[in-house]
């Protein structure tokens, strides 16, 4: 893509964001059946698993084995820092101006004093990392979650998170570097870093999941919700789950109570 194309794309995106920016509301409740394409998604999951077991996983484990932890941490910091502009943009789009200022300082400190982001010097200055993206912004604006999707290679997504992936792409500093000799190896390293950092999680899924696909789907959706609510999602849903089977041997109070609308979807 040439520079003019890129400029037009970003300009159009900016216009859409400005038009939508006014309607900030509470994130809407998740749909009753979050996964209408389960059969298709399961096939993609099986493909991703096969690919990971054959190629991506072994490469990631070799990376973990041969690259020392400190070097891996520097690589992780470098790629995390590159998401800085996207975090700041979405801080602002969600109206979190103070956090936007902090994340701007964080990006500036780490890019300069942190030697291009290899060191997370901002964290030691009390500037903690925030995770924001345009998918979360859409949720805060009141857009529904949409069907759950398992994408080839990329893994779990909600429909709402897909425009977020596009915004992440445009706001990624490497996107503006035109030399493939620089961007291609860096993109490959970034991908291996991402997979390597998930090694423990993937191992736990393989060891403890009864249905790995459902495990990944549920954990992803819960994690997204956690991020959308900035780490404080309403606890009510979790507490209600316990009430479903709390003391089932005891008779219901007041005899025939109407069933609550929280009945699980078949």
């Amino acid at each position: 893509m040439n520079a003019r194309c890129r400029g037009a794309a970003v300009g159009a995106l900016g216009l859409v964001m400005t038009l939508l920016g006014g309607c900030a509301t509470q994130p809407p409740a998740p749909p009753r059946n979050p996964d209408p394409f389960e059969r298709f998604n399961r096939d993609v999951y099986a493909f991703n698993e096969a690919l990971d077991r054959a190629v991506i996983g072994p490469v990631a484990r070799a990376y973990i084995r041969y690259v020392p932890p400190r070097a891996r941490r520097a690589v992780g910091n470098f790629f995390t820092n590159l998401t800085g502009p996207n975090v700041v943009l979405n801080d602002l789009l969600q109206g979190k101006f103070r956090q936007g200022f902090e994340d701007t300082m964080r990006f500036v400190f780490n890019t300069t004093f942190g030697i291009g982001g290899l060191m997370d010097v901002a964290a030691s200055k009390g500037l903690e990392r925030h995770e924001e993206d345009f998918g979360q912004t859409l949720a805060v604006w009141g857009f529904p979650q949409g069907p759950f999707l398992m994408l080839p290679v990329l893994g779990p997504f909600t429909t709402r998170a897909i425009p977020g992936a596009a915004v992440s792409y445009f706001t990624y500093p490497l996107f503006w570097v035109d030399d493939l000799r620089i961007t291609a190896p860096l993109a490959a390293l970034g991908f291996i870093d991402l997979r390597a950092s998930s090694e423990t999680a993937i191992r736990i899924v393989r060891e403890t999941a009864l249905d790995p696909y459902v495990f990944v789907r549920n954990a992803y959706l819960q994690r997204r919700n956690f991020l959308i609510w900035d780490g404080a999602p309403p606890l009510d849903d979790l507490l209600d789950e316990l009430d479903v089977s709390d003391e089932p041997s005891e008779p219901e109070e007041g005899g025939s109570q109407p069933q609550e609308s929280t009945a699980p979807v078949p």
Partner: protein
Amino acid sequence: MSQDPSAVPRRSWFTLWVVALAVVLILPRAQAGEGSEAAARAVVEHLQTALLEAMRTPAYQERYRRLAPVIEQTHDLDLIARAALGRDLWSDLDTRDRDRYLDLFRKMSIATYAREFSEFSGERFEIVSVRPVRRKGVLVRTLLHKADGGTVELDYHLRERNGQWRIVNVLSDGVSDLALKRDQYRAVVRDRGFGGLLAELEAQSRPPSATSTP
């Protein structure tokens, strides 16, 4: 008692009222609140101390043997098991199936802890806050400080049953273990029936050599 109210001066009546109100309304509540928070905190501390000890124990069987009483004491495993299945599926089971399910769930829970908390490299737990939540519950928020400097948020939800505070759910970085279990259990029962679920729980209860993947 047959006291004549007029025999007591007005002011002492008022004082008596205030004291009585305080005794009836405020004190037990404050006591229950603080007492339950302290009790819930102690349960989580007990579990986390045992987990750190387990991580320093190399043999799986030994870890399992030591963790088993702690897990059973600190968790309301029967309630978790029933909630993971959901009221409708639970009510479909006869007594024999319920007992088998509860027994396998208990073994699977201990085996999972014994398998996953197997290596120690300087981790430590920190209790961040303890606060009451809706309907006789307490939430204990903790941080697991990993060796590489990273942290995992571990939040324990506890409930009181028969005078004992026990863990009914654990949230790691916002992901509810109970919700994860429920979604999976119901999918397995839907696809392979209750027998399929029992077989999976059985497989999860085995020592790691039998289930580990390269």
